[in-house]
């Protein structure tokens, strides 16, 4: 069942001394549809509202106007735990206040599945391990998170996100905010390969935001061009990523061959 957004608008509440002024909209009039099993990339320059749109789609922010529906249900009014079981968000960077082992972090993903004083059981352990295996970090289970490389950390957080999502629900969506922004090329390729693997083999619906053209072009099945909070185009990369579109998106002159080989 698709994830769809209709006429989304959002502006951050004004902070500081003038609370009565209306703030500029970070996202306005955005309507998109994400099919089950798609790997969608929201592409745009910094400040275009990518992260905001991602948070709106994930239900972390409540839109000022418009709705986000998952399986026909409004994402922002869903109970937090239920939403957490269907939608998982992987932030750009994870900074721990204290050091945990990789397995502990994967197990933390099971929070929405447990009651207030309930302790993790074998089912939760299995889900955590499955997530670690899927991201190729199973052998790191007893390592401390702070000692991992950037790429390994990112994959562990993805594993925790996978453990968080219900296994049987077809309407589970994995959101990633700038998954490669802080990684070296080698780790970028690792994460890209992982995402494709999750998409191809486990049919996880993935929505990610990025400003990296190359990454979006090579990994995503569908691309949404976002500029100043508005959608410029949506569709497969081959169709959407034309030199004219790129020029308009990044406000640059482009004279290059298409980046995508099919």
């Amino acid at each position: 069942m698709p994830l769809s957004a209709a006429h989304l608008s959002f502006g951050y509440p004004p902070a500081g001394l003038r609370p009565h002024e209306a703030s500029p909209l970070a996202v306005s009039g955005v309507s998109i549809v994400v099919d089950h099993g798609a790997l969608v990339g929201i592409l745009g320059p910094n400040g275009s509202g990518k992260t905001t749109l991602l948070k709106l789609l994930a239900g972390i922010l409540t839109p000022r106007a418009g709705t986000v529906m998952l399986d026909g249900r409004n994402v922002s009014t869903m109970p937090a735990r239920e939403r957490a079981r269907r939608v998982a968000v992987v932030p750009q960077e994870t900074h721990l206040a204290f050091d945990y082992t990789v397995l502990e972090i994967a197990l933390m993903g099971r929070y929405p599945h447990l009651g207030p004083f309930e302790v993790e059981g074998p089912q939760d352990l299995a889900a955590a391990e499955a997530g670690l295996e899927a991201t190729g970090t199973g052998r790191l289970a007893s390592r401390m998170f702070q000692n991992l490389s950037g790429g390994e950390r990112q994959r562990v957080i993805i594993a925790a996100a996978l453990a968080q999502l219900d296994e049987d629900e077809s309407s589970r969506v994995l959101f990633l905010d700038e998954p490669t922004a802080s990684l070296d090329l080698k780790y970028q390729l690792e994460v890209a390969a992982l995402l494709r693997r999750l998409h191809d083999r486990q049919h996880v619906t993935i929505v990610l935001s990025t400003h990296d053209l190359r990454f979006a072009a090579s990994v995503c099945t569908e691309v949404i061009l976002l500029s100043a909070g508005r959608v410029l185009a949506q569709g497969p990369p081959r169709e959407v990523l034309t030199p004219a579109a790129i020029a308009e998106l990044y406000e640059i002159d482009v004279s290059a061959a298409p980046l995508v080989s099919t």
Partner: protein
Amino acid sequence: MRVHAGGWMRREWGLVRLAARTVHHGLLAAMVAMALAIGVLAAPPAVRPLRPQAPLHRIVSLIPAVTEMLFAMGAGDDVVGVSSFDHYPSAVEARTRVGGLIDPDFERIISLRPDLVVVYWTQTDLIARLDRAHLPIFKYRHAGLADVTATMRTLGTRIGHAREADREATRIERELDAVLASVAGRPRPRTALVFGREAGALRGIFVSGGVGFLHDMLEAAGGTNAFGDVRQESLQASTELLIARAPEVILELRPNEGWSAVRLRQEEAVWKGLSSLPAVRSGRVYILADDRLLVPGPRVAEAVRMMAGAIRGTGSFPTDPARGTGVGKY
């Protein structure tokens, strides 16, 4: 490894505050150590024989005890400046206030154009400034009971009232001898002399150790200091220590705060919390609320007499109705 700037700065700030707190605690510890050290050092006050001088007429006194001495030896009219804590005799209310031990007002002192300033020997900053201003100084040191009369005589000589000072000192000595005679031959009960306690509770109890003015008064009044073996002027008595020393009499000294007799009884009843102490069981807990008790000045003999009466358990000793001294017997 990437470092998140915000988190790092927060940790830095946290560390700075931690360091400040460590220093703060360390300073407090140093102050305690200093206070203990000052109590422990037992150097006698330096008393140099002085040639009699011409009478001085503009005296500033930062010590309430000394102010009383000056008035007692007839030099009251020559006192132009007194401390913030002076209240006796009533004439001092009309004099200029110049601060106290911790906050002496140097400007006000010199504005009075004194020909003698009596200071605590520990007020080194003030002494240095007065020296630079070429003002004569008398350094006072709070010591034992016998030093009260010695100081009076020295001071009297210094300000040109030697004869009156000697007369007063002799009177005090005779009164003290009378008290000593009245307690001679009587049993000397083990006594805890308490001079500070949290109101309404048995915590933060400070007692006199075996050194100093309070201890001397207690011994003169016919009591044996239960903490006499501690070579310090004061110590905080823990519950364990009180139980171990098992005092037979508890004497609490307080300044006169205008408490009624009922209030004093209530405060004495707080000691029931330690009902196993011999003093509490036999009802020999006394709170004496009188300013004379805490000032090592010309009225010490009256103070000692008061204490002796309490120790003896007679409950009949002179009170000043105008000042409302309250005494209760538990």
